[in-house]
C-alpha cells in the first residue's frame, strides 16, 4: 500500500513538474486552439477559457497549505478613478491587465516588474460627460497582440512584447452616443469581438467583430432591432433609441463557430406601460434583442439563435453577464448563463431552454419563470407612480452582478454570488426619446430598500450548475461584487466588498484563510504559474455604478473607502 502511494506520489510529481515546465518554455503565440486547450499555467481569456469556468487546475496552493499564503508583489496602476474592475490575463509568465482610462500594463508574473505600459490618449471632454466610465474590465490576447477597448469608442491592438500600437480602430461615434467600451474583448479565430455599452443611454447597442491582424471591421450586430423581425418588436419607432449593448465579453463555441453573447437592457429602464406592454408605454413590444442571449456566426455576424431571457425587460435585469458555462452533462452539451434578475438559465447549444433556477431568494418582478420553457409567469409591469409595497426585488444592482462565478470540474459545483436587496421607485411617464441625446433614459426615481421582512445581505453559494441544488452557502453583510475563483487545490477564493479576500474549502465552504487588501474588491481574480510557482492575482479598488451605492447604504468602512484608488495584489506561498 505504502509502495503504491509512493509510486502515485512520484507520478504526480512528474506530472506537476512536466506541467510547470511548460511555463518556462519560450513564448508561443496565443491562438484559438491554445485558448481552447486552456493550459493550466496561463489565464488566456476573460473567463479563463472559452468554457467560462473561471477555474484554475493548479493545486500547489491547496486546502492544506493555504494558511501560508502571503503577498508576493503588488502593482499600483495609478489614476484609478472609480477603482479597479479589471480581470488580468497571463500568457507565458507575463501578466496583462488594465486600469481606469484603459491603461494597459505588462508585468513579469513572478516579480511584478513592469515590462511595458500603454496609456491611450482619450477624449477627455467626452469622458467627463460619461456615467459608466472611465473604468476598464480587461484585455484579450491573440496573434501576438493585446486588445483593449476604450470609453471613447476605439478598439486598440498592442504588440504583446513591446506594447507598441499595431492598430487603433474607431468603432463607435461616442461623441454622439456618449458610450464606448469598458468590457474586455474576446479573441477567436483571427477575430476580435467587443460589445458596446448602452442600456440607459439611447442608441442601438452594437457588437463588433474586427480582423485581429488589420483592425478592419468585419461586421456589426445591433442588439436593438438587429433584424427586420426584431424591429417589429419596438413600437412607435422606439428602436431608434432602444439602449441594449453587450458590455461584457461572452464566449466562443468552436464546434459550431459561434459567438455566444449576453445583451443589455432596453431604455428607458423603467416603463410605465402597465400590463399592456405589447402595445403601450415608452417602448411597446418585446424589444428584441435586449436582455437576451444571442448566438452569432463568428465569420458573418448573422444571428443563428437567441433566447430573450426577459421579454420587454421593465426592471433593468439584463443578460449582459458574460459567463456562458459550457458543460457536458449526461451526454448533453449545456450552456449555463446567469441573468441579473437572480435566475440562472440552462440552455442547450442552440439556446433552447433546458432549465431555469433561482440563485437569489428575494425575487418578485415575476412570480416565477417556467423552468421548461423560460416563460415569465406573473410579471409585475408598472404604471406611472409609486412602487413600494412590496418593493421591487432585486435592487437595480441585480440579484447577480456582472462579475463572474466559478465552476470547478473536480467538485462539479458552481460557486456564485447572490445579492439580496430590493428597491422602492416612482415610475415617471416620460416623453419618448426619439434620437440619441446626451442624457440618460432611466424613467424612475428609486432608492435601495431591504427585502420584505429581512435585511440586505449577499451570499456565496456552491450549487449544481444545472439543477441549482445547493451544497453550501456563506453569507456577507454587504453583497460582494467581485469575481470568484476556484482551483484544483480544492479552494474557492472570494474577494469581498470590504476589502478582505477569503479562501474556502471547495467541498464544505469552511473558511481556511483570509487577508485584507486594504480596499474593496469589484474586479477579477485569477491563478497562474511561473517557473513552477503558483500565484493568485486579484484587483482591489472600489468605485463605480454599483459600489458607489455602498457608502450611503452601508456606512462603516465604506464611508472612508476611496473611489479613486486601486492595486493589483499577487499572492503565493511564503
Amino acid at each position: 500500500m505504502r509502495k503504491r502511494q509512493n509510486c502515485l506520489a512520484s507520478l504526480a510529481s512528474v506530472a506537476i513538474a512536466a506541467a510547470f515546465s511548460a511555463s518556462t518554455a519560450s513564448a508561443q503565440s496565443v491562438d484559438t486552439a491554445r485558448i481552447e486547450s486552456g493550459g493550466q499555467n496561463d489565464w488566456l481569456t476573460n473567463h479563463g477559457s472559452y468554457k467560462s469556468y473561471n477555474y484554475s487546475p493548479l493545486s500547489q496552493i491547496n486546502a492544506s497549505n493555504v494558511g501560508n499564503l502571503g503577498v508576493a508583489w503588488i502593482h499600483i496602476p495609478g489614476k484609478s478613478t472609480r477603482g479597479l474592475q479589471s480581470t488580468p490575463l497571463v500568457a507565458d509568465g507575463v501578466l496583462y491587465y488594465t486600469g481606469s482610462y484603459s491603461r494597459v500594463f505588462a508585468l513579469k508574473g513572478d516579480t511584478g516588474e513592469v515590462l511595458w505600459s500603454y496609456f491611450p490618449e482619450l477624449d477627455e471632454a467626452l469622458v467627463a460627460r460619461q456615467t459608466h466610465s472611465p473604468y476598464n474590465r480587461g484585455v484579450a490576447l491573440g496573434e501576438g497582440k493585446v486588445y483593449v477597448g476604450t470609453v471613447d469608442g476605439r478598439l486598440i491592438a498592442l504588440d504583446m512584447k513591446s506594447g507598441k500600437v499595431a492598430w487603433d480602430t474607431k468603432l463607435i461615434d461616442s461623441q454622439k452616443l456618449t458610450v464606448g467600451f469598458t468590457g474586455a474583448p474576446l479573441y477567436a479565430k483571427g477575430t476580435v469581438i467587443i460589445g458596446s455599452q448602452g442600456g440607459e443611454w439611447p442608441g442601438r447597442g452594437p457588437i463588433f467583430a474586427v480582423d485581429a491582424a488589420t483592425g478592419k471591421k468585419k461586421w456589426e450586430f445591433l442588439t436593438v432591432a438587429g433584424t427586420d423581425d426584431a424591429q417589429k418588436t419596438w413600437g412607435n419607432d422606439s428602436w431608434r433609441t432602444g439602449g441594449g449593448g453587450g458590455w461584457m465579453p461572452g464566449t466562443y463555441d468552436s464546434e459550431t463557430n459561434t459567438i455566444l453573447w449576453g445583451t443589455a437592457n432596453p431604455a428607458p429602464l423603467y416603463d410605465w406601460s402597465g400590463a399592456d406592454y405589447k402595445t403601450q408605454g415608452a417602448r411597446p413590444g418585446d424589444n428584441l434583442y435586449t436582455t437576451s442571449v444571442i448566438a452569432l456566426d463568428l465569420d458573418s455576424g448573422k444571428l443563428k439563435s437567441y433566447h430573450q431571457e426577459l421579454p420587454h425587460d421593465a426592471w433593468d435585469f439584463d443578460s449582459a453577464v458574460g459567463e456562458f458555462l459550457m458543460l457536458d452533462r449526461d451526454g448533453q452539451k449545456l450552456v449555463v448563463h446567469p441573468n441579473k434578475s437572480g435566475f440562472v438559465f440552462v440552455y442547450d447549444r442552440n439556446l433552447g431552454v433546458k432549465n431555469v433556477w433561482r440563485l437569489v431568494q428575494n425575487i418578485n418582478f415575476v412570480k416565477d419563470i417556467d423552468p421548461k420553457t423560460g416563460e415569465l409567469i406573473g410579471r409585475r409591469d408598472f404604471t406611472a407612480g409609486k412602487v413600494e409595497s412590496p418593493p421591487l426585488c432585486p435592487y437595480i444592482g441585480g440579484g447577480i452582478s456582472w462579475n463572474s462565478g466559478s465552476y470547478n470540474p473536480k467538485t462539479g459545483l458552481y460557486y456564485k454570488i447572490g445579492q439580496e436587496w430590493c428597491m422602492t421607485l416612482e415610475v415617471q411617464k416620460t416623453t419618448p426619446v426619439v434620437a440619441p441625446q446626451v442624457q440618460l433614459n432611466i424613467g424612475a426615481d428609486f432608492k435601495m430598500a431591504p427585502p420584505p421582512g429581512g435585511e440586505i445581505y449577499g451570499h456565496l453559494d456552491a450549487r449544481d450548475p444545472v439543477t441549482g441544488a445547493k451544497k453550501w452557502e456563506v453569507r456577507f453583510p454587504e453583497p460582494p461584487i467581485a469575481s470568484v475563483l476556484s482551483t484544483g487545490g480544492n479552494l474557492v477564493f472570494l474577494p469581498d466588498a470590504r476589502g478582505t479576500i477569503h479562501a474556502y474549502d471547495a467541498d464544505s465552504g469552511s473558511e481556511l484563510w483570509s487577508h485584507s487588501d486594504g480596499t474593496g474588491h469589484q474586479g477579477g481574480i485569477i491563478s497562474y504559474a511561473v517557473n513552477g510557482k503558483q500565484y493568485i492575482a486579484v484587483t482591489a479598488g472600489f468605485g463605480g455604478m454599483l459600489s458607489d451605492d455602498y457608502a450611503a447604504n452601508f456606512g462603516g468602512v465604506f464611508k472612508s473607502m476611496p473611489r479613486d484608488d486601486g492595486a493589483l495584489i499577487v499572492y503565493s506561498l511564503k
Partner: protein
Amino acid sequence: MKLKYCAAVVLLAVLVASQGIAMPARAQTPEDLANFDVNQLFASTCGFCHSDGGREAGKGPQLMGDQHDDDFLRNRIKNGKQGAMPAFGGSFNEQQIDAIIIYIRDLKPR
C-alpha cells in the same frame, strides 16, 4: 399643447431679455421647450445617482436641504466632478439647469 409651447417661448424670451442669459449649450427646439418637465428630467437622468429623486444619498449625495449656493450647483451640473459626476453642460441649457436648481430647493420629504 399649443398654449404650453407659446408660454414656454414667452418665458424664454423674458428670461433672455431680463437676465442676459447665455446661449443654450445645446440648441433647443420649440418642441424641447414644450415638452420640458423637470420631474421627468430628474427621473430620466439625475435620479440614477441621486436616490429617491434627490431626497436621499445614493451613488451621489442627498440634494434635499443642500447648503451650497446656486452658483455652486450650476457649476457642478455643468462641469461635473471627475470620477463622481458627469458634466451636463452640453446636455442641459441654462433654463433647464435653473429648473433643476429650483427642483432641488423645493425638495421635501415624501
